[in-house]
């Protein structure tokens, strides 16, 4: 049976057209989603991870576009994909250490959108507040501050091995915590 999205759901209609192979509609949709995703991830991730997360999400939207049901609203589907890739990115952060910014780059080039940075910091701070202090401290230092494991060990008084364990456990708990939430965009 042929189905059509609600007339007021512009993105839903564009995606339904993309599912039929309409490339112009698809380009329009992805261009709009890129901006939306960038805003979404800036509120939830450190700036260095935002672009990668946006690209991951765009690829996921492309690969899983057949799972969107055109009779339903588009926004919840998009939010579910974006949220899933957010958790995925948090999980990735347990494996890869954030590299510190190159000191040679002038400050004015390192600073992105200040407003977004503040929101991101507030959301992250709230999430980190749910962890044990020992875990939150080393995540702040290594993952967000760009310190090495040894530096974090020196600053917190934990052994390097414990720093690694605390980062792993803390980020895993964070990912599980986020996964348990019924998040909205």
């Amino acid at each position: 049976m042929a189905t059509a999205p609600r007339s007021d759901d512009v993105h839903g209609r564009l995606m339904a057209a993309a599912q039929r192979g309409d490339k112009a509609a698809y380009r329009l949709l992805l261009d709009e989603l890129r901006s939306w995703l960038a805003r979404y991830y800036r509120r939830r991730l450190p700036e260095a991870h935002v672009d990668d997360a946006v690209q991951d999400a765009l690829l996921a939207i492309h690969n899983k576009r057949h799972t969107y049901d055109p009779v339903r609203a588009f926004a919840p589907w998009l939010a579910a994909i974006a949220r899933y890739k957010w958790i995925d990115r948090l999980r990735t952060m347990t494996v890869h250490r954030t590299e510190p910014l190159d000191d040679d780059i002038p400050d004015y080039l390192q600073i992105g959108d200040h407003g977004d940075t503040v929101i991101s910091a507030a959301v992250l701070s709230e999430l980190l507040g749910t962890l044990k202090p020992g875990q939150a401290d080393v995540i702040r230092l290594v993952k967000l501050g760009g310190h090495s494991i040894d530096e974090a060990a020196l600053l917190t008084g934990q052994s390097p091995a414990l720093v690694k364990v605390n980062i792993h456990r803390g980020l895993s708990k964070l990912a599980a915590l986020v996964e348990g939430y019924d998040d909205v965009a």
Partner: protein
Amino acid sequence: MSPRGNSSEVMIGRLVDDLQPVVPRRVWRDAAILGGVALTELGLALWLGHQRADLHEAMRGPMFWWKMLTCLGLALAGGIAVLAALDPETRARPLWRGLAAATAVALLVGAVLAGVAAVPAPVMLRLDMHEGMLCLMWSLLMSLPVLAAILFLARRAAPTRPRATATAAGVAASGWGAFVFAWSCPHADPLYVLVWFGGAILLGAIAARVLLTPVLRW
């Protein structure tokens, strides 16, 4: 435009070039595939004579129906949870509630029947370790076709709760495996059924949660 922004632009260009028409996922189609695999397995097992000799006599007793309906109920609850979980918008909490409710009902009915049909025999004799282990092993083996079907469907879908999906898949598959095997199992003692059939379903759920969760990530 920043180099990163530019790479997003390049990526969008590639995705647009790569665009092919797709058929939207329909839950009834997935349900038909899953049901088809499950019923084919059951049909094959019965056709090959995989049923107890005293089946007609056993069907007159309540324990037979409790055993069958418990396995079937858990398999159906797990199957419905899996089909729901394959939709990216599905939230985990209702899935857990559904599975927990189905398990609680099964255990409650089992406990009542166990009280009614108390068997005056030593526990180890009632458990029949050798037969029990075979029961457990066959139930798990018979869960594989349904598990493979779920894996096939999951890879094509977008489950955003991999752990919940994997656990539900384990309950559905091992519940169905136990149901298919139960047609040939002559044991009706509630303790035996709870330990070996319940053990098979629990083991299947745990194994699926551990082994399937990484596979279901995308």
